[in-house]
């Protein structure tokens, strides 16, 4: 494999991929949970850039809005509203680290073997094609039912989350039911 065959875009991909993996690894291995969450910010940004490399521009924007702007803030809330979670001792590993590593490494080996072993076809467009217009058409034609069902699911989730989060000790003044 000749290194000079690689273009600037390839090196940019390698840099973004390395950034994504390294921040994800820090999020997994960090003892301090607040640092792990902020490292996850880098992972989400990296994944948004990867979507950009795959010419999914709309998805990259949505990834930024929902993951970085929404889910990450939610997780930060969860971290900061629960007591003594940010102490390193509170997020120690359980005893099963060796087993977990074994399972993860086995899965990684299988997935990489498949990814590199199968002769994938490559008939995508070579240039950038904006996908936003086609996504809109798809959502309002073939995907209309799923789109509407998703909104019902979201309503159910919101009600369920409120019911669960309002739980209080039965000895207290309110049962939350």
């Amino acid at each position, binding site marked *: 494999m000749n290194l000079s065959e690689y*273009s600037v875009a*390839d090196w940019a*991909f390698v840099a973004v*991929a390395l950034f*994504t*993996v390294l921040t*994800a*690894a820090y*999020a*997994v291995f960090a003892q301090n*949970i607040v640092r792990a969450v902020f490292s*996850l910010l880098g992972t989400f940004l990296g*994944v948004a850039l*990867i*979507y950009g*490399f*795959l010419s999914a521009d709309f*998805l990259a924007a*949505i990834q930024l809005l*929902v*993951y970085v702007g*929404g*889910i990450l803030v*939610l*997780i930060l809330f*969860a971290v900061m*509203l*629960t*007591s003594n979670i940010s102490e390193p001792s509170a*997020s*120690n*590993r*359980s005893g*099963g*680290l060796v*087993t*977990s*590593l074994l*399972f*993860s*490494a086995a*899965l*990684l080996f299988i*997935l*990489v073997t498949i*990814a*590199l072993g199968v002769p*994938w*076809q*490559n008939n*995508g467009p070579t240039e950038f094609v904006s*996908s936003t217009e*086609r996504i809109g058409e*798809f959502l309002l034609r073939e*995907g209309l039912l799923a789109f509407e069902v998703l909104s019902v699911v979201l309503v159910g*989730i919101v009600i369920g*989350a*409120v019911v*669960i989060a309002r*739980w209080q000790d039965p000895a207290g003044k309110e049962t939350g039911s």
Partner: protein
Amino acid sequence: MTQVTLPHFLVLSAVLFALGLLCVLSRRQAVAILIGIELMLNAAGINFVAFSRYGTARVDGVVFVLFMIALAAAEAVVALALIFALQRRWKTVDVTRVNSLKG
């Protein structure tokens, strides 16, 4: 001509997925487990978009990931509510100590 093709994206998402699985299996904090789940969801999303880009060249995969992101947000909300409930009921978010269903 760019040399980065489908296998590169598949390997990247495999690494992310393995990291997420490791996080879910080895952590005891409920929030840390949520982080692992988000990592695995992102890895699956990369796979969907990569196959859609290099395979059929249609938008099916992108729309699938859109739905996935919406459901991931919903899942994060429910997880947050559960974590609050755990914190109130057991005064801890260590999932190994929440075992009152254990016989």
